[in-house]
């Protein structure tokens, strides 16, 4: 098992934005107010325990996006908790692009997925439209060592203790623990490839017209946001770092 020192850990945001140029051709503009909260304290922060940034954005001239957040929390120069989240506005049924990339010396804990905003067993067409484009990538990347170990592919099992979190996942979620340095880079590639598919879907997305479907979709989306903001154990860490008051802002931007 390769240990990766803090100084050698992946610069998540820099790699995604500058090396992979994920948003090339798209003009991101800062989202200063999110759900009534001033987001500026998250743009850059430093506390005794942590430093980093969460940068919430929207896309210039676009009404389809609720938020795009990219961020890193560096914890005591020992670990990095990184996130990329892309959430569409309530008029669109696009899945939530959610990625957590938590790097420490022994491993990266990763989840990347398109979380469906409707019950896909009922809405088969949703799978075809929004999730099936991931099928090939899912099959390619689920073989990354760590996801598959000793002949056992443990993709979609990482959130064992949290059934509510597994409920939010699509059939194409990549999640697991990856150790070796070169495999960590492959994970970044998977994150970017998934994000590119999401951005293609965003470009083509049309507003939802059926009011009943829209109501169902919004309820599911808000339920997922509530779960992650209220129940994710990472939220407890954020409370310790930022205090009760500010932690709400951080968790709301991460998910």
């Amino acid at each position, binding site marked *: 098992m390769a240990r990766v020192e803090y100084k050698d850990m992946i610069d998540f945001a820099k790699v995604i934005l500058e090396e992979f140029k994920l948003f090339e051709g798209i003009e991101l503009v800062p989202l200063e107010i999110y759900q009534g909260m001033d987001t500026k304290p998250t743009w850059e922060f430093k506390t005794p325990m942590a430093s980093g940034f969460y940068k919430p954005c929207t896309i210039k001239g676009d009404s389809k996006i609720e938020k795009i957040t990219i961020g890193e929390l560096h914890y005591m120069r020992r670990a990095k908790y990184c996130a990329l989240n892309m959430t569409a506005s309530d008029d669109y049924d696009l899945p939530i692009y959610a990625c957590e990339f938590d790097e420490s010396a022994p491993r990266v804990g990763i989840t990347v997925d398109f979380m469906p905003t409707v019950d896909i067993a*009922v809405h088969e067409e949703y*799978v075809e439209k929004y999730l099936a484009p991931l099928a090939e990538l899912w099959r390619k990347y689920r073989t990354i060592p760590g996801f598959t170990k000793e002949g*056992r592919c443990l993709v979609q099992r990482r959130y*064992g203790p949290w059934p509510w979190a597994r*409920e939010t996942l699509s059939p194409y979620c990549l999640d697991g623990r990856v150790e070796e340095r070169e495999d960590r880079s492959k994970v970044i590639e998977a994150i970017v490839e998934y994000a590119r598919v999401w951005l293609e879907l965003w470009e083509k997305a049309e507003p939802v017209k059926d009011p009943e479907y829209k109501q169902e979709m919004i309820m599911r989306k808000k339920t997922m946001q509530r779960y992650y903001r209220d129940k994710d154990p990472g939220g407890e860490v954020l409370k310790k770092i930022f205090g009760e008051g500010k932690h709400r802002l951080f968790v709301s931007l991460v998910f």
Partner: protein
Amino acid sequence: MGEGIKWSPYVEEMREQIDQLKISEIKEWEGHDLTPVLEFTTSQAHGGFKAYCTAKVEKIGIGNFYLNEKVHWCFCTIFPREDYDLPIFISRWEEGEKEISFLVDLMPTVDSLIDEDYRKRYLESVQPLWERYASLPGICPEESDVIRSLCSIIYTAAKVPIEKEGMRLAALAPHTEYLKSYLNFLREANPIGSDAKRKEVKRKRRALRETLRTKFFKEVMKDSMGSIMGENLTELISTILF
């Protein structure tokens, strides 16, 4: 039985559980005479499927067939009655000489992300089994994207390498254990209390059934079921199971 292969007693073990219910055999379903599929032999396969009903259950389907004496396919499904919110029990078993591929699940009949009570009652309570079988050799996601889209958060799927004969029984354990849990839910189940929930269950059951009927065999047998069994037998097996 294939040469040298001692096939797993899938049907016997599952029947042992199911027989604890007061079941009655169904000979006809939705206008289909099920007799031809009770026991059949084609040029490539032989086997048999039966359907049963019991209290709170619309239909139990169970059966198996041997394909060219090289692959042992087994299936078991339980569809609860429409006025119960019980999940749909589904078990698929594909046994070869060197590998067993399987899926077992309790497919939710509501949106179990939204309905936390349902999730706690029928899925989280089975989570200890899900965790136990995570250590099974060959554990993996269900390969079919279509079927995986229907599965619950506690489905167990695997491609278990048969390195020693004890592995066949080890692979069978998730099926019998999930079934035992399901039968306990069945014993305790009460009819759905609210109209809104009844409507939700009805809609999701219809969607699940439609997908399973039209796509299940295409997905798990790579479209070969029709050529192996003929269209009539395929349709009858699908009718029994879904």
